[in-house]
């Protein structure tokens, strides 16, 4: 079910995380409405990936809370959430094929071990072919190129027909043309599948072109707003640590929490 417009898909409030005694996120708030394409930007170590892990429910919080689809237990909404990690560190000799990898999560395809390959292929949802991952089914996951792996990971994340897609620097290790293609693909998926997308990225020009909302982090939310409002010199200075308060008005103006 697609949530009603403006009903928040994500509500994070006062999120505070310390890793190894060091504060990584302090009092971070984020509110994402259904259908938005949100980019989390910030320098290395700004806590972007940590915030994404908090949203996924795999990072313990020191303070604060996260609600996905109005609930606080991420285990209850896992089928509604797709996640694309930076990469898979699959051991080179582990011969998990793309077919087997996709069958691990595809509804109804769980018994792949006992089934002929063609029957497993027939059980994979159409999104696999839509993303061109059907041409890679026999390939070992560990042997895929950066671009191929991203397609497979996106297909994997869409297997259960999620409403929310979270991507952690998905173009790390992909060349510049591949990065461009990737963002166009995500934009297309966002539009056609009517998804809410939250993406961690370094590439400001691509974020500017594709995101509908940008949140700049540097341990806390420095500023957030529409891309042309945030991706400006003063706002970026704030996000990247030189000046911290310059964009607060944007958040107030748009009524976003944080």
């Amino acid at each position: 079910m697609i949530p009603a417009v403006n009903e928040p898909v994500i509500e994070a409030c006062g999120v505070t995380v310390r890793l190894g005694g060091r504060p990584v996120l302090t009092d971070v708030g984020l509110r994402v409405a259904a259908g938005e394409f949100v980019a989390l930007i910030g320098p290395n170590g700004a806590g972007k990936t940590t915030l994404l892990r908090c949203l996924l429910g795999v990072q313990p919080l020191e303070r604060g809370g996260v609600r996905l689809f109005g609930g606080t237990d991420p285990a209850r909404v896992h089928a509604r959430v797709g996640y694309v990690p930076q990469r898979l560190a699959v051991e080179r000799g582990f011969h998990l094929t793309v077919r087997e990898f996709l069958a691990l999560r595809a509804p109804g395809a769980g018994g792949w071990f006992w089934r002929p390959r063609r029957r497993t292929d027939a059980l994979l949802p159409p999104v696999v072919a839509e993303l061109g991952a059907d041409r890679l089914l026999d390939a070992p996951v560990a042997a895929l190129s950066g671009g191929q792996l991203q397609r497979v990971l996106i297909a994997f994340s869409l297997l259960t027909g999620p409403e929310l897609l979270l991507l952690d620097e998905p173009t790390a290790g992909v060349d510049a043309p591949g990065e461009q293609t990737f963002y166009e693909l995500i934009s297309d998926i966002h539009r056609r599948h009517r998804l809410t997308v939250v993406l961690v990225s370094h590439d400001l020009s691509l974020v500017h072109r594709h995101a509908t909302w940008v949140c700049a982090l540097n341990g806390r939310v420095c500023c957030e707003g529409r891309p042309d409002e945030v991706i400006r010199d003063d706002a970026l200075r704030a996000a990247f640590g030189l000046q911290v308060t310059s964009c607060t008005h944007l958040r107030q103006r748009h009524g976003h929490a944080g």
Partner: protein
Amino acid sequence: MLAEPFMQRALLAAALLGPVCGLLGVFVTARRMAFFSDTVAHASLTGVAVAFLFSFAEPALPMIGVSLLVAGLMIWLREHTRLLNDTIMALLLSGSVAVGTVLLSRAQGYRGELQRALFGDVLAVGPLELALAAGLLGLVGLAGRWRLNALALASAHEELAAVSGVRVRWLNYGFVLLLTLAVTVSVRLVGILLVGALLVIPAAAARNVARSLRQELLLAGAFGLLAGVAGIAASWTWELPCGPAIVLVCLACFGLTLAAAPAVDRLRGRR
């Protein structure tokens, strides 16, 4: 050979434990846990010493107890300290070998027991070991039926598995429990020094020719079975210690599959 009850038990135990170790070995190598299995194997030396000193009728029980304790300690240290995995395992491996050797040295005539523990013995397989091996194969079968997808996904990416609804922490505890039991029961047959080979080599041999996880699991189980049975038969025929005989068959499987890999690839290419 089959007329002797101890050989019947040893053959049956090898036929049960070979596939168990082969199948678990696929995930042990994928999850880089070979050092973990070596550590729990060495920890069982303290169990052997406890059994010898206190005249336990069934040495398998204190061995399993000590190995599970050390496995639990490894997990606790990993979750509650900043020590790296390798450091924790080196600490516990050398610690348990030192404790086991000191305890054994307090007993008269410990050298024979030490050699049996290190290199394995067909005579060490009793009804309890056989029952444990059968139970383990059953457990691995059940785990394969119900948790194969979760284990494969967690082996590829733990966070992705967690987000897909897998309780990764409990899955890891279950895998560690199963692996510790498999290692400790196999130690009786193969020995502390060589049990790691029964986990790693069948999986490595399978990888030489497999092109999917399904093939890898099936071949690793088959190589484990072959190594166990042929190793015991070779040990009887040529009066060899059984642990090294099993490992030599494992190595032969590895060598053959390595040599056959290019031909297998060519055959696949033609299809």
